[in-house]
C-alpha cells in the first residue's frame, strides 16, 4: 500500500498576543497515512489532534514541518498545490449544526462546494450534488430545507455529502460523531464505512471515543500535549499497548459490558496547560512510572514491534531478525 500522506516533524505554535508565551499545539509530529486506510488520531483536550487535521488541509498554517500528498510536497501551499489539495482533500466537522450555513438550503450547501470549480459544467455539477445527497440518504423532500429544520443526524449527513461531492481521495473526520446520540452515531459510522468501501476514500479519524476508533480504524496514533506517544495498528495499540498514557487512557474507558472490569491504572493530577511545556517527557509529572531520566531527557522513538512505535524511555525495541543473523 502506498503512502497517501506523509507528515514529517509537523509543529504548530500559537503565540499568545501581548505576551511572550506560546501555546504548543502540535510538537514535532511525524507519521504516514496509507492509501485506502482509516487512520485514527486519539487524544484528550489539548492533545493537538484537531490542529493536526487542520494543518493537513492548510486551514491552519503549520509553523514547521513537511507535508506530502502522493509524494508532492505541499507545505508551502502555492497556487498549484492549493488547487490539488482543495479538490482532493475535504473535511467533516464535529458540530453538525454549526458546520452548515444557517441561510443555505441543503442543496445549496452541497452545490456551492462544487461551484468553485469553474471548469465543471452546470449539468454535471447538479448531477454530482444529487449523487452525493443520494449516497448519504438524504431524500428529495429535504433538498430545500434549512439546517434548523433537520435532525442532528441529517445535518451531519449533509456535512458528509458536502465533503464527498467533489470526489475527494482523503477526508479528515474531526470527531464527526461526538455530538450525536448513540443510535445516530451508529448510522453515521455505518455510512462512513460504506462510503469507504464504495469509493476507496482514505480517512483520518480524529476522536476521543476509543470504542469507535477501535471499530473503525486500521492504524491509530495516540497523542498527548501535541506529541504522538504511541502508534501502530489498532490491534497493536489496543491490545498490546506500551506507553503509560495509552495504558491509562485505555484503563479509563468504561466498556459497556459489566463482565469486563476496569483496570486501576491511573494518572495523577490533570492535563497541564500547553503553554510553556516542561523539558523531558510531557507526561512525567503525572506518570506512575516516571523516573529522573524522564523529567530531563526527551524520550526516544522506539519500535517495539514491527510497525508499532512508542515514545518512552521504558520501551524495549524488538530485535529485528535480520540484525541478529548478520549482527
Amino acid at each position, binding site marked *: 500500500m502506498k503512502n497517501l500522506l506523509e507528515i514529517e516533524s509537523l509543529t504548530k505554535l500559537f503565540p499568545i498576543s501581548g505576551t511572550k508565551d506560546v501555546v504548543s499545539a502540535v510538537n514535532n509530529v511525524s507519521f504516514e497515512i496509507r492509501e485506502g486506510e482509516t487512520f485514527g488520531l486519539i487524544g484528550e*483536550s489539548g492533545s493537538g489532534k484537531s490542529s493536526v487535521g487542520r494543518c493537513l488541509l492548510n486551514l491552519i498554517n503549520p509553523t514547521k514541518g513537511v507535508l506530502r500528498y502522493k509524494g508532492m510536497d505541499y507545505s508551502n501551499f502555492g497556487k498549484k498545490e492549493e488547487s490539488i489539495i482543495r479538490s482532493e482533500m475535504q473535511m467533516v466537522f464535529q458540530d453538525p449544526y454549526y458546520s452548515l450555513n444557517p441561510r443555505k438550503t441543503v442543496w445549496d450547501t452541497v452545490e456551492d462546494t462544487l461551484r468553485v470549480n469553474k471548469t465543471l459544467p452546470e449539468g454535471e455539477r447538479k448531477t454530482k450534488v444529487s449523487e452525493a445527497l443520494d449516497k448519504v440518504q438524504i431524500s428529495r423532500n429535504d433538498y430545500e430545507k434549512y439546517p434548523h429544520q433537520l435532525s442532528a443526524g441529517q445535518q451531519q449527513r449533509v456535512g458528509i455529502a458536502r465533503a464527498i461531492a467533489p470526489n475527494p481521495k482523503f477526508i479528515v473526520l474531526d470527531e464527526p460523531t461526538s455530538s450525536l446520540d*448513540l443510535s445516530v452515531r451508529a448510522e453515521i459510522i455505518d455510512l462512513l464505512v460504506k462510503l469507504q468501501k464504495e469509493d476507496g476514500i482514505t480517512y483520518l479519524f480524529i476522536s476521543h471515543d476509543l470504542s469507535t476508533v477501535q471499530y473503525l480504524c486500521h492504524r491509530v496514533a495516540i497523542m498527548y500535549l501535541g506529541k504522538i506517544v504511541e502508534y501502530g495498528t489498532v490491534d497493536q495499540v489496543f491490545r498490546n499497548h506500551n506507553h503509560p498514557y495509552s495504558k*491509562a487512557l485505555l484503563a479509563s474507558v*468504561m466498556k*459497556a459490558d*459489566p463482565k469486563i472490569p476496569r483496570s486501576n491504572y*491511573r494518572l495523577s493530577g*490533570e492535563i497541564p496547560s500547553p503553554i510553556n511545556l516542561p523539558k523531558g517527557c510531557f507526561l512525567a509529572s503525572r506518570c506512575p512510572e516516571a523516573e529522573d531520566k524522564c523529567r530531563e531527557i526527551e524520550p526516544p522513538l522506539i519500535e517495539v514491534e514491527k510497525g508499532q512505535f512508542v515514545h518512552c524511555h521504558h520501551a524495549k525495541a524488538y530485535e529485528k531478525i535480520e540484525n541478529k543473523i548478520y549482527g
Partner: protein
Amino acid sequence: MNQLLKIEDLHTYFYVRKGVSKIVNGLNLSVRKGELLGVVGESGSGKTVAAMSIVDRVRTPGKVVSGKVIYQGTDLRGLNESELRKFRGKEIGLIAANARGNLNPLIKVGDQIADVYLAHNKGDLREAKQRAIEMLRAVGINGAEQRANAYPHELSGGMAQRVMIALALINSPNLLIADDATNGLDVTVQAQIMDLILDIVEKRKASGIFITHDLGVVAQCCDEIAIMYAGQIVEKGPVTTFFEEPQHPYSQNLLNSLPERRGKEKKILLSGGLPNPLELPSGCLFHPRCPYATEKCRQEEPSLVKVSENYSVKCHLFEGITEEGGIVDEKLA
C-alpha cells in the same frame, strides 16, 4: 423499609405557546438503600427534567402535574417549600452536569459550599468554611485551602465538577443524584471523578442515581439499570441481566448501536427519533418505531410488567408472562 426512593406515575409537562410539551409521562422508578441505579436515555428522553422533578426544581413553564415522589415513606410532592428544603441538600444531593454553569460565578467556591452547609446545620461561618475545605480535600482537590478562595471560572472543568460533588456531599446525603456528572470531561478525568463518586458512595453507604447516556458508565459502576424513553421507564433490572439480554426493542436497539456490538452482523438499526413531546403517539410511545408493533400497541399503553422478581419491561409483548418468570419471548430472540 428497604426502599429509599419510590417514584410513582410522575408526569411533568411544559406549557408553551405551541401547546403542552409532555416531557415526563408516567415515570415509575425505585431505588433501594445502598443501591446504585443507572438511568440511561438519549437526549430528549426527559432524564434531566425527571431529576429536577424529584427535587422540585422544575420552574415555569414546566410543572410537575401528578405523581408521587416517596422518600423514605414521605411523599415529597405533598410538602411545602420550607419542608422540602430539609430534604433537598441534606437527604438528597444533586450533582448537575455543566459544573461551571451551575455554580454562582460571583461567589468563591469555598463560600458556596459553606453556605450549603449552613442551610442545613447550625454553626458559625468559620466552622462551615472549615468543613468546606475538608470536603474539597475529600474530593481530591490539592491545595484545598487556597482553592476554596477561587471563583468558578478560575477552575478547570474537572475541578469545577469536583466542587459540584463537594456541594452535593457536604451534608452527607443518603441519596446522590448525578445528572450527566462527567459530561464534557476528558476520559482520564472522567475515570478519576467516577472513582471518587463510587468511593464516597460506598463509604457512606449512600444510594445513587446516575443519569447518563453512556452505557459504559452504567455497566461498570451500577447495580441496577433503567432505560428511559420519552419520559417513561421502559426496562429495569440488574445490570448483568440487562447487558446479557436486553428485552425491550428500544433497549436492544441501543445496545446494537454500540461499536463493540456491531461486529460483522450489522444488526438493523431503528430509524426516526424520539417522539415530539407536543404530539405524543397514542398507546405505547415507542410503537411508531417498533418492528414488533401490533394494533394493541397502537391503542393501549402497556404497563411495566414484571417478567421476573427483579426485572420489569414496559411492553405488550411481555404480558401473559406468568409469575414463574421466563424472560425471553421467542419473537425477540
